[in-house]
């Protein structure tokens, strides 16, 4: 059994791990405090801004964790076997991403004690209902996909084999569930036609969310792979990642055509050039997340460079994060009714506790990824599984 356990972290690595642990610990503390005293006392959320940092991150992280279904589809559905080495890491990224989503969601709920509510009480008209179910089921799928790594580690080949035998149905289920909820995250805003700014509200929003989650999944795979490899001092498979990057160009081109075409078609193009705060945010997310990745990934030299891959995939990631945050915050009108005498417009900036919990969870996830990769057969050199 080969693991990366023997590869001790460097001093810098230790410092990073210590910081991550500290941030995670602080996150746990503030998270518990939030659960005890309530949302009002700990967050800057209000009836004007019922959703803030946490929900913004949640919806972004779901896209990020799209790494799981994207790679699964690439490898198993499109049968592009060359990418199989990346499979386990992307499953881990997916699983940990969704775990983070669930933890934050729990903290954000008014009644975390009733998180199971959607299992019992159904409202199939609600996008969030569908998302909840899909996330629950998909996380289960991810857990099953992840299970072989654990069982391999603990030498249970029968179980591993059993799970492998249902790989294809699992992958199809996973990709299907992801298709549903990644797009339904867009539908979620479609239900808010009078609140969501015209630059984001469009009939094709579910499609845009779905497509961008694929682009994000590819970018996330590249990003995590490079970061993970660096953490363990292993060489990065630049050619493999370059292939993903090349593929993602077409995803982003498709995205751009759909979004641009929609804006032209619906006549909202004028708003794009209004250069108010919405249009400026629109430009930032589109340039960083879509246009620059297309342009830069088109250059073979960048695709062949570890740094180039890292930076450009990070851009795409940041762009999609922005897109999800914009849809959740920038694009949303204040939800609360106020009397005309109230002249100042309500505003929102997260409280330190919101940051603390958020980054705590992210740090914990990063730590979990690190230790999983260290202890379990995630990277190809540690995996038993052959081609």
């Amino acid at each position, binding site marked *: 059994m080969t693991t990366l356990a023997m590869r001790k972290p460097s001093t810098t690595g230790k410092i990073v791990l210590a910081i991550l642990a500290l941030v995670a610990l602080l996150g746990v503390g503030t998270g518990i405090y939030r659960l005890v005293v309530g*949302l009002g006392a700990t967050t800057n959320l209000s*009836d004007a801004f019922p959703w803030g940092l946490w929900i913004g991150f949640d919806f972004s992280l779901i896209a990020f964790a799209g790494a799981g279904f994207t790679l699964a589809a690439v490898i198993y559905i499109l049968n592009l076997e060359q990418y199989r080495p990346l499979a386990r890491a992307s499953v881990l990224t997916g699983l940990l991403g969704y775990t983070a989503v669930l933890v934050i969601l729990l903290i954000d709920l*008014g009644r975390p004690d009733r998180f199971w*509510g959607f299992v019992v009480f159904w409202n199939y008209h609600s996008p969030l209902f569908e998302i909840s179910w899909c996330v629950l089921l998909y996380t289960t799928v991810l857990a099953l996909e992840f299970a072989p790594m654990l069982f391999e580690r603990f030498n249970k080949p029968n179980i591993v084999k059993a799970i492998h035998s249902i790989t294809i149905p699992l992958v199809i289920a996973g990709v299907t569930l992801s*298709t549903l909820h990644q797009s339904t995250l867009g539908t979620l805003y*479609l*239900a808010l036609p009078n609140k969501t700014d015209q630059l984001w509200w469009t009939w094709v929003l579910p499609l845009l969310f779905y497509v961008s989650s694929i682009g994000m999944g590819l970018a996330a795979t590249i990003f995590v792979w490079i970061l993970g490899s660096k953490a363990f001092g292993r060489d990065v498979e630049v050619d493999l990642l370059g292939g993903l990057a090349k593929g993602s160009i077409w995803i982003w081109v498709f995205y751009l055509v759909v979004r641009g075409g929609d804006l032209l078609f619906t006549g909202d193009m004028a708003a794009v050039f209004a250069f108010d705060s919405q249009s400026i945010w629109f430009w930032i997310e589109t340039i960083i997340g879509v246009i620059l990745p297309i342009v830069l990934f088109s250059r073979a030299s960048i695709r062949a460079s570890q740094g180039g891959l890292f930076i450009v995939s990070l851009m795409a990631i940041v762009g999609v994060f922005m897109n999800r945050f914009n849809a959740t915050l920038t694009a949303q009108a204040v939800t609360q009714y106020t009397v005309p005498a109230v002249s100042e417009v309500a505003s929102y900036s997260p409280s330190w506790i919101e940051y603390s919990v958020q980054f705590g969870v992210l740090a914990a996830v990063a730590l979990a990824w690190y230790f999983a990769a260290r202890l379990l057969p995630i990277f190809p050199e540690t995996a038993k599984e052959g081609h």
Partner: protein
Amino acid sequence: MSRAVLVDLTRCIGCRSCQVACKSWNDNPAEQTKCLGAYDNPPSFSADTWTVVQFNEVEQADRLQWVFAKRQCMHCEHPGCVAVCTVGALTKTPEGPVVYEASRCIGCRYCQYGCPFGVPSFEWDKPLGLIRKCTFCVDRAEEGYETACVKACPTDALTMGTRHEMISEAHRRINARPHKYHGHIYGEKEAGGTSWLYISPVPFEELGFPMLDGEPMDYASSVIMNATPVTLAAAVGVLSGLYWLTKKKSQAAEEEG
């Protein structure tokens, strides 16, 4: 038959008994407020304030009008909040009220976004917070009483009846005194229609009412959501098909190889 309330702003004297009646019947505590430079208070809906009368100084054609408008849950015919509620805690009853079943609620606050009128409010101050909003006094209605606010209104600016009756009554009043009203019945069409209907001496834009078309809030989303089974089947089909195709291709390649 669906219940409705007609709010005639030409009759409202801004006394705000409806505001207190709402607090009184629902045992809602007072909020700490301060002078906002106008009579309006509290400044917004909240977990403890489900209705607010707004005071509008509207100057039109050199004539200053002081128009008071009671705001509360509109009890939409096709409520956005009901459509988006993850757990179905909000429901539209056939009798009109959009009711909230607190025991179902998980506190996700999606309803706050789903409502175009800014109505559902969250209990931010509680460790385990829930949503609160106007109930249309559903308990009073069930026993045959008017809502607390309608009953309290001194000038019958609030009138309760079936939605059909209230719309005819609104038309009757506008036709009887066209000079007194701006002709629009707010809520007849807006957001697919609401159970609270307004007639006013000034255009509703002047009162800051949201300008909505006749489509229910969930019009677009429900088209997509209703397509979910199709998406599901299509996804499974396409994925299986692709798998089958690529598998066949690679097998062929292997065989060839």
